[in-house]
């Protein structure tokens, strides 16, 4: 029964949910489910997991652009068919994992991947820079202050060597979100790239009443900067620019409050967040650089600043120390000194919990 555009209710199926996960488990995964005993990384991008049954699974992890065409996926399928019995998976950070159940199948798989130009770089395991979790940017969203995929590509090109090696003191997780909505959940990353606006929205008074629900717009502003205002005989709003911190939330609620501005928008960099509970508790990322302009197509300043941070960290931190743990040990005064980043007024918090971030001790380094 093919789809009938004139009767969409015909044979309609709803609420079936996703396919059950184990439909797509390779047989050796199904058999050893819950029986894994230990793992080891054999080389960057290559893992072996050994089960209590003695079974082994070899995983090759490759970096992927995330924004990918069906052609790319078909190439993935081709590889998986050839080496992996027709199964493949994606990781939580958008890498691809090709698995084989026998050591003999590993090298052919690796050779095949390496033969395909730069489409399937191996890495992302252990103390590396793995794939950058990111968002839509100028490819799809309506609120971005920056592009996503282009910046990710530029940064990964520069840090490529750290993707396919274990040279860092610990994992470095980089994320990107193109606006303060933070779909990339950049708020807990070792390094976070965040798109920021720097001009309050302007108000298109002739449109507001038609395209927006004014009470929702007013409620959307975290700092209560928006008030209703009559302009002529139209209902509109007024923005107290002094209270605006450019979050764009009002624009999300109301297209008649455009906030994007090519010259004002750009990037803020954040450092020192983490998610795992290993050693230290999960942490938020903290502001490192308040603003870098958008520099398409290769965003050189952002790229070089991140590289600098990673390199200073690599040379200064102790093994196992995530960036945030390293900074907590050496102190923020030393972080700014060692990286050469400027400490500015923007670094000092002035939002709701600001007080908890001030230094209420005489302990600091000169």
């Amino acid at each position, binding site marked *: 029964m093919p*789809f009938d*555009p004139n009767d969409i209710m015909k044979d*309609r199926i*709803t*609420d*079936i949910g*996703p396919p*059950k*996960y*184990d439909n*797509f*488990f390779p047989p050796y995964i199904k058999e050893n*489910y819950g029986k*894994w005993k*230990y*793992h*080891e*990384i054999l*080389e960057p991008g290559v893992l072996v997991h050994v089960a209590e049954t003695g079974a082994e*699974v070899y995983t090759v992890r490759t970096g992927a*652009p995330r*924004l*990918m*065409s*069906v052609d790319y996926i078909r190439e993935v*399928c081709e590889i998986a068919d050839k080496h992996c019995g*027709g199964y493949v*998976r*994606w990781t*939580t950070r*958008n890498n691809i994992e090709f698995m084989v159940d026998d050591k003999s199948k590993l090298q052919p798989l690796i050779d095949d991947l390496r033969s395909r130009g*730069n489409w399937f*770089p191996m890495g992302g395991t252990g*103390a590396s820079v793995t794939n950058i979790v990111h968002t839509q940017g*100028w490819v799809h*969203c*309506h609120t971005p202050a920056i592009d996503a995929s*282009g910046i990710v*590509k530029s940064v990964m090109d520069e840090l*490529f060597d750290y993707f396919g090696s*274990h040279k860092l003191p610990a*994992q470095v997780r980089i994320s990107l979100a193109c606006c*303060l*909505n*933070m779909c*990339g959940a950049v*708020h*807990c990353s070792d390094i976070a790239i965040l798109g920021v606006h720097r001009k309050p929205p302007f108000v298109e008074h002739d449109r507001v009443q038609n395209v927006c629900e004014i009470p*929702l717009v007013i*409620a959307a502003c*975290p700092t209560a900067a928006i008030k209703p205002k009559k302009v002529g005989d139209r209902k509109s709003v007024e923005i107290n620019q002094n209270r605006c911190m450019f979050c764009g939330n009002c624009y999300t609620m109301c297209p008649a409050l455009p906030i994007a501005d090519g010259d004002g928008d750009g990037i803020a960099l954040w450092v020192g967040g983490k998610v*795992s*509970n*290993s*050693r230290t508790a999960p942490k938020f990322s903290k502001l490192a650089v308040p603003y870098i302009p958008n520099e*398409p197509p290769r965003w050189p300043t952002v790229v070089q600043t991140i590289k600098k941070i990673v390199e200073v960290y690599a040379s200064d931190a102790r*093994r*196992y120390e995530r960036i945030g743990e390293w900074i907590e040990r050496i102190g923020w005064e030393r972080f700014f000194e060692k990286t050469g980043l400027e400490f500015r007024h923007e670094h000092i918090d002035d939002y*709701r*919990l600001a007080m908890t971030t001030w230094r209420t001790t005489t302990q600091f380094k000169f």
Partner: protein
Amino acid sequence: MALKHKTPMLEELEKGPWPSFVADIRRMAARKPMCEDLLGLLELSYEQKEGHWKHGGIVGVFGYGGGVIGRYCDRPDLFPNVAHFHTLRVNQPASKFYSTEQLRKICDMWEEKGSGLTNMHGSTGDMVLLGTTTDQLEPVFYHLTHELGMDLGGSGSNLRTPSCCIGKARCEWSCLDTQEITYDLTMTYQDELHRPMFPYKFKFKTSGCPNDCVAAIARADCSIIGTWRDKIRIDQEAVRAYAAGELVPNGGSHGTAKRALDIQKEVVDLCPTGCMEWDGKTLKIWDEDCTRCMHCINVMPRALRPGQDTGATILFGAKAPILEGAQLSSVVIPFMKMEPPYDEFKELIEKVWDWWMENGKNRERLGELIQRFGMKAFLEAIEVQPDPRMIKTPRYNPYIFYDPADVPGGWEHDPKAFRERHHA
């Protein structure tokens, strides 16, 4: 192949060792005008440093309140093929294993009915089908449900697509059946997922252990994280083998060469609770002081393993900054056994939702409501007793809202008697 639009800036992104999304899109553009116009539009954004997409408007499939993000270009005059460019969020199989058969079917369908571009995957976990026109939404949905056995994921003020780490499928540390939990919740709450009924979005994420490989604690209104209540399992032989340099520390994370592990320095001294002792022969763990941070296990995967009395710590409230600032999830249930059909967990969640739906303002995430009403009100509503594991530290301000029920006479004074004792 020459494209309709000049894209000199984007071409710069075809260089370099990392796989290029531009090169990938360009090869599609040869046969898909949508991709061609997308590149043109993106080049314009690169020139102007501004995005060119408008708000979504209400598009979707019939009977569902989510799963589709509407998108219109603000320069259809220049790029008519992406005038509409809606996204479908397709609920991924838990932990993202696929058969190539399934993937190829999806590709064929999407090349025919959409742009042929995807995100593998979206940040929430969905398979994202990026860009199609309004008239294709129903056909895609029909195809998904009829041919592929797939369904849409969440968007809008509903349950969002749950996701999880790889868990027991390939990880030795998983204390939970992460996929099973994710699948069960997804199936049980199909209605919540497809028909917005909440004040705002709600996310579940499940990690098998405190390493939290799906970043649940940072990104889920309800974070389910595996843990154990008994002792870390120790293989003392293997500990000695690490010390002797016979095993690769940290499973090779810091280099795959064998080297003698300095157990004192790299394990014992980094244990956050200081609950380990190493005398060069035997590793002693005072498990009652262990906070199950995973560090020692991570460093010596062949010697140490999580305990066997496993379950989950349930935390609530994580979210991105809008409105009140970002939050991490907070411990609410220190330990819960997680076995199908997860009744205890579901009862809890339903109480959470009831309270949130009753009290939450429009676009108020659970974490923000807990902030606004206070943890006490939340715990009372979900019938959970206060526990010091819920807090980092007890309050340090003296602004205590004492319960009038605990006070003789409640809130009432006897003003007359007072003024007899105290002349004004």
